[in-house]
């Protein structure tokens, strides 16, 4: 278990990481997600011990590691550029951490074979890193980081340098290896899909601070704030007024009013957050807000079609993404009514 308590890193007056507190349970897969410059890589570097921290405490399995050297923390690290030692064979790379721990030759050989088996590359021990593909190199880096059985594995955008196809494959690999080796994982990425696919919990970082920390599902369906709604949910945000009435909420947005049930959501001036897939042309009775719009553009995307619309005198932009069959007959410049499905929407503080 990893516990970060008020972890802060300042460069001069600027805080790259600001009083960050979060807990990673044993065996849990946690993703640090944030735009570039949000401090996620700095936080990872603080946990690894490559960067000294300014304030705060870090506990790994109950042991205070805040002032312990990187070598003595016993944390596995995987980087985006694989960082395999180019002058060593794959065997020597994977064995490096075991040699540092003075394992016997027999044990090392056995463990390296085991690790190469785990990553599905048992025959490459004698090769050099430059003879492997990017995906293979990253798997070796993973084997090297896990060989000495660390309780915590850190990964800094490990799939960032790979092609899309290999990236999807590697995601599956990482999930499988995590299931089999069961380390706690802290995984840094700026890619939402990776965060969705891999994590037990996601910490959303912005300007060096943790803005939200929860399961991907909760963050997506019940975003805690405006940043989480737009950055993680990729939701559209519309100014709205919410009023409690008869055990439900009356929500006014986009010049119409409808009722919704949203437990524990704020009152008064709020923002209505909703994904493009939850706004669709109304067929007869609308279940949420009925918003008249003009269609500015129709973008065919394969399975779905995206309708770029404009509403009202202030020309509010509304994007709706619908199954391509439903979009047939909708043409650029025509008028229609959109159904904003409030039961799928969330309210966040303005």
């Amino acid at each position, binding site marked *: 278990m990893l516990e970060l308590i008020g972890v802060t890193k300042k460069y001069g007056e600027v805080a790259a990481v600001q009083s960050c507190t979060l807990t990673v349970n044993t065996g849990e897969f946690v993703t640090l997600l944030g735009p570039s410059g949000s401090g996620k890589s700095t936080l990872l570097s603080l946990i*690894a*011990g*490559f960067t000294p921290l300014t304030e705060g405490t870090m506990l790994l399995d109950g042991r205070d590691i805040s002032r312990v*050297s*990187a*070598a*003595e*923390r*016993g*944390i*596995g*690290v995987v*980087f985006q*550029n694989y*960082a395999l*030692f*180019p*002058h060593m064979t794959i065997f020597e790379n994977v064995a*490096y*951490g075991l040699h*540092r*721990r003075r394992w016997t030759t027999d044990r090392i050989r056995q463990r390296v074979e085991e690790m190469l088996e785990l990553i599905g590359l048992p025959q490459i021990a004698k090769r050099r890193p*430059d003879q492997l593909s990017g995906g293979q190199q990253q798997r070796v880096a993973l084997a*090297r*980081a896990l060989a*000495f059985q660390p309780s915590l594995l850190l990964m800094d955008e490990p799939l960032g340098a790979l092609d899309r196809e290999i990236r999807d494959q590697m995601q599956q690999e990482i999930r499988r290896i995590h299931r089999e080796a069961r380390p706690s994982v802290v995984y840094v990425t700026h890619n939402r899909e990776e965060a969705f696919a891999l994590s037990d919990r996601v910490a959303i970082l912005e300007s060096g601070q943790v803005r939200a920390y929860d399961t991907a599902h909760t963050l997506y369906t019940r975003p805690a704030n405006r940043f989480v709604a737009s950055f993680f949910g990729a939701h559209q945000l519309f100014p709205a007024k919410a009023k409690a009435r008869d055990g439900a909420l009356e929500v006014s947005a986009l010049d119409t009013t409808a009722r919704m049930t949203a437990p524990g959501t704020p009152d008064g001036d709020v923002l209505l957050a909703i994904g493009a897939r939850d706004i669709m042309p109304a067929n007869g009775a609308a279940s949420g807000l009925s918003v008249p719009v003009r269609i500015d553009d129709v973008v065919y995307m394969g399975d779905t079609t995206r309708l770029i619309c404009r509403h009202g005198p202030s020309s509010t932009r509304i994007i709706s993404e619908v199954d391509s069959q439903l979009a047939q007959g909708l043409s650029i410049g025509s008028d229609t009514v959109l159904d904003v499905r409030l039961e799928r929407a969330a309210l966040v503080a303005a």
Partner: protein
Amino acid sequence: MTEQLTKNRWDTVGQATFRVIQILAIIFCIAPALIVLLYSFYEDVFINFPPVRPGLGLYENLFTQKRWLDAIWVSFLICIPAALLTVLLVVPAAIALERAKIRNRDALEFTALIPMLIPTTAYAVGVYIIYLEAGLVGNYWGIIFTESIVAAPASFLIVRAALRRLPHNLDQVAMSLGASRLKALLDVTVRLLIPAMAVSTLFAFIHAFNDATFIVFLAGPGTATVAKTIFDALAYAIEPEVAALSGVFMLFVMLLVVIGQVVRRKTQPR
């Protein structure tokens, strides 16, 4: 169509002109070297053009007269330690400047390049004045030290270039696997810098070996290198052996340059 043809004709003229300039430039660059080589294979006492008495007499003199042999010997005695000293200075400096968080990094880096940037003669006068005060003129170690400083910028640039090609998180990975900072540095960065350090040593040696300016100011009896000897041999009298000595000198340095390039190409990542 006509326009196309005219354009082509101008292109041809341009290309021809360029070709001629190219050839002239090459001739201009290597002619002096060729002339020295040519003269080394003649036995004329005075420098005639064209030379008249072909023969290997100059080389015979060169390799039998103690004065010339001493010069070659002294050159090695000075330049090998100077080259080694240079690399000892340059490698830690390059690693520190590239990897550590240092204030005024640019200023420091500039300092390392100064010996290359300011006029050599002026710099040599400065060293001469300091050495005169310190009683180091003609001193073997004093000369080695100066030669290594003079060779430092080129060596520094070679090591720094190699260092910049290494991902700096290799050391971090080694540390995360349990290596101390020093162990990680030695196992990874320094180990991967070995080819660059070899090339860097070679170039430092060539630099020191080629130097005529500093050595003219600083050398005394017993510290006259090949360059200094050639210089003296022409300053007071014209000794024809100079041509042979220059020939050997030149071929040797060219050989080193070729070796350096081969090592560089072989060890650079594809």
